[in-house]
């Protein structure tokens, strides 16, 4: 059975190879090849899942050793896969949502002449992401880690002719590389500390930890913080969050799959996978919770101010992953819930993005929500599925997000002490803001006036709209319509997940029992009862929705964004993080490299040349002799050899 594991990865990898090297011949069928191979991978995953379910909880780990990858004296890295409950969960999420999004992309990318290549990249992503979660050591994980980064780079920049897309792709890769430094250093530290970086020996199991127990807390804290740095890059957590908003330049299915449901959650996987390291490094855990709490608020605030529907959702993704990171930082109290929220979020956020894509598809690729409005009549399926995703994410009682987010908020309080109160309060506040910004998105898109009509008949009372109307006059006026079946089916399936997954997981603590053998679990020490937390969560959610309704539901939404408060303006600019990066890193870097080029040309070159000035002068004279360098060089060689002979003779004589 374990031999199937490699096939999970091989299927999409084959697809990528065939589609990217196959040439134009495959243009007509490429998307089907890609989708079928993604589906095949899902089927393999389902078979393996059934197999795992048939075993008892303690024996649900399969490993498959393929070959010795880097064998060097004292250093051993293998291509070995490990499938346990944690990786199985990811495999199903990745291949399941992945297959749906492949299907969706058939329709979404129908008119793109490079559709075959798009599916090649999507398949490449699946293969890399599966490698990431199936690797049995950190170095192999690194390959998947960068592989998804590469796929993300290629897909964000898929419309390369747009300079903004190319820039966003580069930015994503670069910011992730900073995180990769962390992963590199963490692996190097593991190697010097344990002599290995394979999961088995280093981590052990949660009942019987491996070599980690022999290391000092300082070392483990170092490793954990470096892993956290890596996680921050991949999962867009503060301070490496700046790339995710720009990543929305990619086609919307990419945003749904990579930048919402799967890749960006890899950081959470890394932390939960490394639980035994973090468990022994409480200081690092504290930092993890702080990063999570800060990001969940940061992302939520940014989400409130964006008029671009995808960027609003991107802020939301950042914020939701902040919840997961927060939970992962809580240790055994939170690991299971981090992953549970990760899965439910995978459903509803992918669904929301696909819904947004469907809206854009019907609206001439318009992304500005201020130019939407009243679309529920024209896109009923999109409206309902998006609406269910919306109810899930804000934590409407009974839907997926309610169960998973509520658990995280409970766990945050259960951390105990002042920390617990602060973290719990942040999580609650985040829930209120989530309800606010998601209601805003919902209202601006599907309710209210049909603001997209205004561009056709600009009222004379609002001359400021006219220029916008003119620029849009070149495009065909939007005729909102429902998307084709290949797009709506994935949306419907994901909507089912958004509604029922949370409840299914929570009844009888199914998810907890499934994952506990890998991650361990403890209840913590809750200062307030679960019922109180749930009541509070629902209350703040209602408050958030109400405020949003007062602002965007009761009053008409202006087509041109008002100036807004200082905070709003800062939030629109991603809380000025990009401005900071630009001034400090980009400008500073440009000055640095420019001056170094000058220094290299004048100083370094000059000094070295100056030292050899006499030889240089000699060369000038030689050139005048016009006898070419070969001859003069031959002379000097000969002279050198002569000196050598003379010297040896002399030494002999002595």
């Amino acid at each position, binding site marked *: 059975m374990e031999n199937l594991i490699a096939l999970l990865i091989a299927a999409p990898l084959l697809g990528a190879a065939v589609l990217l090297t196959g040439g134009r011949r495959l243009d007509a069928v490429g998307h089907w090849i890609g989708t079928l191979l993604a589906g095949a991978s899902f089927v393999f995953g389902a078979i393996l899942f059934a197999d795992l379910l048939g075993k008892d909880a303690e024996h649900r780990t399969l490993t498959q050793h393929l070959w010795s990858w880097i064998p060097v004296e004292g250093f051993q890295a293998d291509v070995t896969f490990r499938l346990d409950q944690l990786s199985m969960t990811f495999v199903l999420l990745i291949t399941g949502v992945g297959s749906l999004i492949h299907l969706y992309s058939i329709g979404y990318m129908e008119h793109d002449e490079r559709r075959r290549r798009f599916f090649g990249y999507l398949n490449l992503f699946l293969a890399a992401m599966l490698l990431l979660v199936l690797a049995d050591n950190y170095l192999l994980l690194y390959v998947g880690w960068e592989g998804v980064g590469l796929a993300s780079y290629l897909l964000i920049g898929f419309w390369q002719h747009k300079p903004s897309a190319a820039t966003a792709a580069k930015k994503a890769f670069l910011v992730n590389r900073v995180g990769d430094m962390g992963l590199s250093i963490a692996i190097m530290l593991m190697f010097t500390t344990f002599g290995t970086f394979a999961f088995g020996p280093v981590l052990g199991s949660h009942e019987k930890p491996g070599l980690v127990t022999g290391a000092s807390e300082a070392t483990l804290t170092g490793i954990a913080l470096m892993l956290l740095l890596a996680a921050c890059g991949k999962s867009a957590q503060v301070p490496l969050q700046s790339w995710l908003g720009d990543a929305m330049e990619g086609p919307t299915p990419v945003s749904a799959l990579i930048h919402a449901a799967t890749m960006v959650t890899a950081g959470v996987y890394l932390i939960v996978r490394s639980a035994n390291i973090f468990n022994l490094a409480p200081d690092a855990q504290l930092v993890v919770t702080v990063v999570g709490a800060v990001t969940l608020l940061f992302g939520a605030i940014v989400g409130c101010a964006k008029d671009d529907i995808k960027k609003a959702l991107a802020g939301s993704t950042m914020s939701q992953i902040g919840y997961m990171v927060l939970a992962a930082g809580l240790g055994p109290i939170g690991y299971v819930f981090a992953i549970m929220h990760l899965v439910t979020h995978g459903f509803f956020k992918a669904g929301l993005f696909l819904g947004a894509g469907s809206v854009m598809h019907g609206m001439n690729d318009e992304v500005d929500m201020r130019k939407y409005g009243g679309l529920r009549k024209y896109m009923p399926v999109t409206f309902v599925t998006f609406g269910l995703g919306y109810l899930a994410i804000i934590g409407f009682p009974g839907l997926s997000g309610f169960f998973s987010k509520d658990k995280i908020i409970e766990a945050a309080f259960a951390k105990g002490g002042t920390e617990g109160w602060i973290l719990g309060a942040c999580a609650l506040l985040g829930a209120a803001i989530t309800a606010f910004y998601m209601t805003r998105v919902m209202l601006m898109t599907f309710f209210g006036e049909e603001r997209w009509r205004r561009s056709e008949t600009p009222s004379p009372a609002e001359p400021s709209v006219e220029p916008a109307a003119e620029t849009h006059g070149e495009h065909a006026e939007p005729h909102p319509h429902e998307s084709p079946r290949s797009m709506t089916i994935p949306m419907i399936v994901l909507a089912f997940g958004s509604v029922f997954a949370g409840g299914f997981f929570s009844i009888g603590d199914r998810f907890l029992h499934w994952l506990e053998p890998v991650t361990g679990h403890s209840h913590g020490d809750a200062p307030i009862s679960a019922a109180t937390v749930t009541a509070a969560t629902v209350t703040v959610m209602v408050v958030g929705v109400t405020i949003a309704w007062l602002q965007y539901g009761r009053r008409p939404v202006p087509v041109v964004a008002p100036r807004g408060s200082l905070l709003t303006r800062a939030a629109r600019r991603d809380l000025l993080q990009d401005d900071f990066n630009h001034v400090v890193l980009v400008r500073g870097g440009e000055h640095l490299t420019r001056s170094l080029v000058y220094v290299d040309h004048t100083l370094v*070159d000059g000094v070295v040349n100056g030292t050899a000035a006499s030889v240089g002068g000699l060369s000038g004279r030689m050139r005048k002799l016009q006898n070419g360098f070969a001859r003069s060089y031959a002379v000097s060689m000969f002279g050198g050899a002569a000196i050598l002979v003379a010297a040896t003779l002399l030494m002999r004589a002595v």
Partner: protein
Amino acid sequence: MSFPLLTATAVLPAVGAIATAAVPAARRTAAKWLALLVSLATLALAITVLVRFDPDGARYQLTESHAWIADFGVRYELGVDGIGVALLALTALLIPFIILAGWHDADPLETGSRRWRPTQGFFALILAVEAMVIISFEATDVFLFYIFFEAMLIPMYFLIGGFGDRAHAGSDENAAAQRSYAAVKFLLYNLVGGLIMLAAVIGLYVVAGNFSLQEIAEARANGTLDMATNTERWLFLGFFFAFAVKAPLWPLHTWLPNAMGEATAPVAVLITAVVDKVGTFAMLRFCLQLFPEASKWATPAILVLALISIVYGALLAVGQRDIKRLVAYASISHFGFIIMGIFAMTSQGQSGATLYMVNHGISTAALMLVAGFLISRRGSRLIADYGGVQKVAPVLAGTFLIGGLATLSLPGLAPFVSEFLVLVGTFARYPVIGIIATFGIVLAALYTLVLYQRTMTGPVKPEVSAMPDLRMRELVVVAPLVVLLIFLGVYPKPVTDIVNPAVKSTMSDVHKKDPKPEVEAAK
């Protein structure tokens, strides 16, 4: 007496060079084919060496030894260890690609120009360089090594000075002047290095009484040959200086961007992927074996210089406007990694460094040759003259990207394996230096992706809108390199198996043991 296989690997291209040069001027194409066939035959011989080499056998294999200048103890001694065999194979592998990529680089210029290009000479010189580089990897006699280490400068000088890149911003005279400057600079830097080495070679003879690497190294190891501490250090510095110029190590690097910028792309590959490797190879073979104590004494300083090379080279690459100079500075950064790995004095560092030499050869060849194809289409080396190429020439852009990703050491491609080994090997002994060096991976991503973004993406510039995609000859050059980059990234074991025993011997030469893992050490 058995067939002198190692001699044959060097003699074949040497004879091929003479034969190519002798082809009548009118039969230009025949000369090209002859050169290509000779290089392929040399590759076949190199593969034979590779097959015959037993990684677990004696340290030096396929040895040949003949008296040469008996009075001065100079012998014609050849032999390869795992490191030599890997680099021999790399050299023999790259030359056919270099020849094929440079197929039209030495064609006569268009009418109207009075400059004449001796096509035969171009290919003959490449083969001559190959012969000399190969013998440098095989020589186990210090004097024999020195002769060819120096002699290869002559054909290189003519390749740089005589066959410049046609894509030049300035006028013909201006281009000729810059080319001549680059060639002279190349020659002078290396000449000075060589002369200093010559003094050290003489000094070594004075102390040891012969030139045999094996004899001296053995005598050094078992204590029968004592060197005064200062003598050893001076001799070490003499050797190291020459190798550091060739490698090149900061601050002796400034000849490389000039040479690589002015030479044609295939010759630039010859410089950085083949000739420069002799420098780093020689550090590993001669510096560490002959002067183990001095090597350890100099380690901190060398590591700092290597670290500066890594960061400085990468930063300079970011600031370049010329595609080829950018690749040159990237190479300087990579040579920093190689030298750092050698002097980290750990098994991982040295195996990584050797692997790095091989992988850097392949990845730079891929990137630089595609860059050359690009430049020949547009007639400009300036990054700013390009834009949107991927739209019109997607295969060219794709292979360029893969070359770039290899240069930034993307996991899954060959250079990642070697770079990580170097980093981990350095980190094990010098954590701070290891950590600073990891900044190199961020900077590498920066210069590579900026280069790709500016040339390949964005709106199509009118000047590139009619650019043809890769032709069959060009694909034949690039595709095998790409396959190798992927293969050696996924399965580097064939190379590490050959290299590991040689590294083990070197480690024992310098009396160094790998640091033990903290957890194990605590027990």
